[in-house]
């Protein structure tokens, strides 16, 4: 036993040493997809156009709020191709030109692009300039031609452009210089050569421009004034009539501009409906002859019957969504109407001039977790019996996308996962007797066969078929996607909160959605018009004595964008996805502080700071209060006011002194403040250590047997400030007027422990803080390169504990409690290195005990994740390290950090629109789980020092067995032989 206990650490050490020699983490080709998964999403669909040509595959082209243009397969919902435009290149409109190009207008109407539909290649791109900023409108008329060129009409930046569909050349343009003119619609009546631009000027003037589509010549300009003004939204009911609302939202105006003459017809809404209840708004639609308005309680559909007469056709209090009109035959236009009724949705397709007759009426059972229908897009096809069939694409409140056809959901996409706000991990239930364990191998024969295959693979005897068989066997090994906790802690649930307010639990094994829950508090409701999900916290992580409880997460949300809006807390069970409880708070939430204390049921105490600087304790139990009271004077926190450059420290004072007695509310006080001079510094990044980070040892043994003590404090804050001038884009300032200052601030006392200025440096700054070091990334204007710097901070007050005798006699101060009110004796070491890439996110690997060496995970501009060993960012690297330093593992100094192609964690994949990287420790010390999210999701396991504590998954047990059998056989054979020989010897 003793031998073993000696041997195991030795082995670990040896393996550690071995792995440190080969820092490159890489993957063989056949290991792709074994431990990692990748999912592609597109985000919430803004606009969809169908491309259903007679030949070729049926597809739908969509533009989304994540700035993605994608072509989806109409049969299965898969992505054919996809392009992610930058975040500053917001898509304003898409359409199809000539049946084979997708035309997109983006960047506030200044970039027009054409993409080839079959393969998504860009055909041309043109830049449209204009005199002023304005609404941008895209119109692709079907049969408007100028000298055989099909024309795209774009109104953007106060200018009307006619662009050739073939090569993107601007054929003509026309300025609308009138200062206050705001275009609302660009209309091209079919079959004519005229273009109408209508809009409002000032607040009460309606303007109409009639333009010759062939050359952009202004034919007519009419204006009419309506004294009480307009709401800015209009609905087009025919090619020469629009409907608008007056500024009070109570009078409907039918504006017709036939033959260039503008005429108004006023109809008060109260004439149409008895109880209009509040101001109305026009729902954007373009169904001929019909428009919809929405009041607080009702959605009202109104038909226009010639000469501005209006007639209510339907008034409903269900949530209703209407699609745009779709021409189906000569003079007939169909549109789709979706209404909610309980757990079903009713889909009706109607012809525009016949409200009462339905072309199609279906009801479809809809998952309540998807919320309301937000958008409807309609498309038709010819059925086998030559009649018209319709399919609709609907976008739900949770941002999912569904295709409905023949009364059923053909496919659905969970595109809410493209906009993840927060991620937390949760364990899976422990395997119990009742829980059935899926058998991996069915019988011995298959088991043996599998291992024989693996053996063949190892000995390079496998044929291509065998290799394929091995691969598929590995992939389907159901072990990794089981719903129970595993010994190594690889199987977990990733609980993610999306921007739509939906919680998803993803299984780390294969990335499938285990459950999803649309939080009640994040549904749009009467009391809360624009709920926003904010954060996700682990509320209860049962272990030890509360094993029977299910773990739960806390979701914090808020009604509306401003910080004093009342907050809502929701508690969700992570095993089942059930909402356990929901608390609507009277106060807002500015800051949430998870405290390092838990009660007897392992519920974590949280302190919520509201906008009046009161602290509120949750959970509101007497036990929690008792625990809290005990630690009352040891609770400190800080707040960053980055708009005015002040960081403040706070502590608790006493019970709230309000009228209502609230035991769980506390007054706070300011303890310290750091005020950055507004003329020279602006806060652009603040980073702290992760709360749940584990540090294995405080001491760091350096070369020549010396010891340095890491300054490990949970209360360190890294702040980066830049010159206010230099906070713009890279290159907007000269190196002389730009600098970056990095601070390490103690958040209990407000002491600045370290402060360093980088002259000629500029943001954006991305930083990561772990143990006693911080790494930050910025741009060096002088060297014209990106740079990464590291600061390590060491504690000097413990430095004299090196004497062994002191340690033996107990005369050291290593176990004495540390007070941050002591004067800190720290030294810092820092170093800068050049780095080739710009960075989207930085994270660091975290393991269960913190023994394994660390790797930085860098989200590069190419949407990949690069693993970089922390040893490359060691401030003690020198040009010629001494022998002792080399043995310690110090790499000789280089000016730039190496980018080793094999160390891309995402190997050949891209996590489009990468926003965040989350690391979760597995139970196995060597391994960490990495989850990268953006528009795409990517998950993998990493072992920064290789898996020194376990055998790899493809370890060939059969080979081992075979060897043992062979050895045993050999022993027997040689024994027999020797015995025989001995016998012969004796007989001699």
């Amino acid at each position, binding site marked *: 036993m003793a031998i073993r206990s000696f041997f195991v650490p030795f082995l670990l050490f040896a393996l550690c040493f071995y792995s440190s020699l080969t820092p490159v983490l890489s993957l063989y080709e056949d290991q792709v997809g074994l431990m990692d998964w990748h999912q592609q999403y597109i985000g919430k669909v803004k606009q969809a156009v169908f491309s259903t040509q007679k030949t070729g595959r049926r597809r739908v082209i969509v533009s989304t709020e994540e700035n993605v243009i994608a072509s989806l397969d109409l049969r299965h919902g898969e992505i054919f191709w996809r392009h992610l435009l930058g975040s500053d290149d917001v898509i304003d409109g898409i359409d199809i030109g000539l049946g084979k190009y997708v035309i997109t207008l983006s960047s506030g109407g200044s970039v027009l692009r054409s993409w080839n539909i079959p393969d998504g290649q860009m055909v041309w791109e043109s830049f449209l300039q204009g005199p002023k900023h304005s609404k941008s409108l895209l119109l692709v008329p079907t049969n408007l031609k100028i000298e055989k060129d099909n024309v795209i009409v774009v109104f953007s930046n106060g200018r009307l452009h006619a662009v050739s569909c073939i090569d993107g050349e601007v054929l003509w343009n026309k300025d609308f210089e009138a200062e206050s003119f705001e275009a609302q619609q660009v209309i091209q009546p079919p079959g004519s050569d005229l273009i109408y631009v209508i809009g409002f000027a000032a607040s009460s003037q309606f303007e109409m421009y009639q333009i010759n589509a062939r050359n952009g010549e202004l034919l007519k300009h009419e204006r009419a004034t309506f004294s009480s003004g307009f709401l800015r939204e209009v609905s087009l009911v025919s090619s020469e009539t629009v409907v608008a609302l007056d500024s009070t939202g109570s009078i409907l105006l039918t504006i017709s501009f036939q033959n260039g003459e503008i005429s108004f017809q006023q109809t008060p809404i109260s004439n149409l409906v008895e109880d209009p209840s509040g101001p109305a708004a026009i729902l954007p639609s373009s169904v001929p002859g019909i428009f919809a308005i929405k009041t607080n309680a009702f959605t009202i559909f109104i038909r226009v019957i010639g000469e501005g007469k209006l007639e209510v056709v339907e008034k409903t209090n269900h949530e209703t969504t209407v699609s745009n009109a779709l021409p189906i035959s000569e003079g007939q236009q169909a549109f789709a109407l979706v209404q909610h009724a309980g757990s079903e949705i009713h889909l009706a397709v109607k012809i525009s001039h016949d409200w009462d007759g339905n072309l199609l009426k279906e009801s479809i059972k809809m998952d309540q977790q998807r919320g309301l229908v937000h958008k409807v897009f309609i498309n038709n096809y010819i059925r086998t019996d030559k009649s018209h069939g319709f399919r609709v694409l609907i976008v739900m409140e949770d941002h999912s996308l569904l295709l409905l056809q023949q009364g059923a959901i053909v496919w659905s996409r969970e595109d809410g996962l493209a906009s993840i706000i927060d991620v937390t991990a949760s364990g899976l239930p422990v395997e119990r007797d009742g829980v059935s364990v899926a058998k991996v191998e069915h019988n011995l024969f298959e088991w043996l066969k599998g291992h024989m295959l693996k053996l063949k693979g190892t000995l390079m005897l496998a044929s291509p078929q065998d290799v394929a068989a091995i691969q598929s066997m590995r992939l389907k090994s159901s072990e990794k996607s089981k719903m129970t906790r595993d010994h190594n802690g690889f199987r977990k649930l990733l609980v993610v909160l999306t921007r739509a307010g939906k919680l998803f639990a993803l299984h780390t094994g294969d990335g499938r959605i285990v459950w999803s829950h649309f939080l009640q508090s994040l549904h749009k409701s009467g009391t809360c018009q624009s709920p926003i999900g904010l954060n996700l916290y682990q509320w209860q992580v049962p272990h030890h004595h509360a094993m029977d409880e299910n773990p739960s997460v806390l979701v914090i949300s808020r009604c509306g964008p401003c910080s004093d809006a009342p907050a809502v807390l929701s508690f969700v069970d992570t095993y089942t996805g059930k909402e356990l409880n929901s608390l609507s708070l009277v106060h807002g939430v500015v800051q949430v502080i998870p405290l390092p204390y838990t009660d007897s049921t392992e519920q974590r105490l949280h302190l919520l700071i509201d906008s009046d600087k009161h602290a509120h304790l949750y959970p509101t139990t007497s036990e929690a209060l008792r625990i809290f009271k005990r630690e009352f004077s040891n609770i400190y926190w800080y707040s960053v006011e980055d708009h005015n450059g002040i960081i403040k420290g706070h502590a608790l004072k006493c019970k709230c002194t309000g009228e209502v007695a609230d035991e769980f509310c506390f007054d706070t006080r300011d303890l310290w403040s750091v005020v950055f*001079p507004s003329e020279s510094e602006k806060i652009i990044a603040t980073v702290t250590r992760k709360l749940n980070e584990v540090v294995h040892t405080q001491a760091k043994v350096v070369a020549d047997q010396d010891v340095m003590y890491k300054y490990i404090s949970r209360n360190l804050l890294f702040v980066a400030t830049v010159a206010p001038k230099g906070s713009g884009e890279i290159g907007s300032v000269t190196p002389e007027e730009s600098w970056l200052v990095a601070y390490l601030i103690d958040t209990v006392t407000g002491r600045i422990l370290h402060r360093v200025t*980088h002259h000629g440096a500029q943001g954006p700054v991305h930083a990561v803080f772990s143990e006693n070091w911080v790494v930050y990334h910025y741009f060096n204007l002088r060297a014209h390169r990106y740079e990464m710097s590291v600061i390590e901070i060491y504690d000097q*007050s413990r430095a004299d504990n090196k004497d062994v005798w002191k340690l033996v006699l107990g005369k050291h101060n290593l176990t004495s409690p540390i*007070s941050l009110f002591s004067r800190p004796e720290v030294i810092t070491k820092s170093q800068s290195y050049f780095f080739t890439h710009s960075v989207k996110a930085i994270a660091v690997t975290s393991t269960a005990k913190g023994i394994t060496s660390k790797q930085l995970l860098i989200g590069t501009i190419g949407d990949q994740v690069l693993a970089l060993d922390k040893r490359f960012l060691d401030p003690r690297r020198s040009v010629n390290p001494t022998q002792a330093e080399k043995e310690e593992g110090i790499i000789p100094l280089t000016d730039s950090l190496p980018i080793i192609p094999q160390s891309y964690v995402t190997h050949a994949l891209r996590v489009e629109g990468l926003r965040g990287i989350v690391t979760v420790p597995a139970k196995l010390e060597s391994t960490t789980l990495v989850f990268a999210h953006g528009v795409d999701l990517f998950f993998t396991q990493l072992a920064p020092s290789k898996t020194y504590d376990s055998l790899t998954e493809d370890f060939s047990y059969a080979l081992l067995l075979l060897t043992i059998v062979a050895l045993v056989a050999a022993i027997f054979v040689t024994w027999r032989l020797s015995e025989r020989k001995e016998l012969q010897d004796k007989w001699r």
Partner: protein
Amino acid sequence: MDTIKVVAAIILTIYLFPFLSFGFQSDELLVDDEEFGLEGAPQPRFPEPTSTRSAPVTTATRKRHSDLDSDSKIEFSLDHAFGDSDFSPAGTFSARIKTWSHGGQTLTKLRFSRNNFTNEEQKKFKNLLESDDFYRIRLPSNVLSPPGRDFIISSVKARCLPREGLDEHFVIHMEGVNVLAVNYGSPGSCSYPRNLKLPVKWSFSSYTVLKNSEQAPRAPIFTEEILGGENGGGEVVQPPERSFWAKYWMYLIPLGLIIMNAITQAMNMPEEQATGQVAGTVQRGPSSAARRR
């Protein structure tokens, strides 16, 4: 005291003279740490953190400009508060402002005079000590136009201050004429749990340090060296000679183990033989006896 300083300045000037006449002269705004003890107070007993990296250049720059620069004297006050009480004046900092030819201004020669506690303040402070509450101080964030944008506040548990008298330590972080932050507390450690201890003397001994930002070391640039190395060509870097042990440890350890094993076996063998011999004699014993018989 002043004469000593003057002499020191002269010596410094002489010492730095070579730096003035030649060498690189940066026109960058460089910042340095300056520490000046409190008048009448003993010199700080502990080594102050100083930036040594760019020190020669820094001082040279300062000296070069000193002829052109104008000095002016300013004062700003320190306020204090007991627990959550309002702030009241507690002392005055005085310093000289140095205006550089390029427009920058910095503070030098900081002095601090602390007002003694009045009886009432003493009582308040005692209360703080008893309740283990915070003693708070504040400074203006701009010394030219106090209070600037906001006050810089710092606090410390009152029980950290009393020693013989009341010891306090200020590190004022400056950026030009702006105060960024002040690290305030006891000059030494403040052990936890904090015990109630009343000071013997009710007078403050204060240490003040002015601190400006350090310059970050620049990233090393090796491109030229590498190019040079390539041009040099033939020179092959000899791998450093490793010791015998470093080269062959992987053979030596198993060898050692085998030898150890062999030795232990060899140790066991004679023992066994010895016991065998003993047994032999025992066996032989009777036979010899029989012979004798």
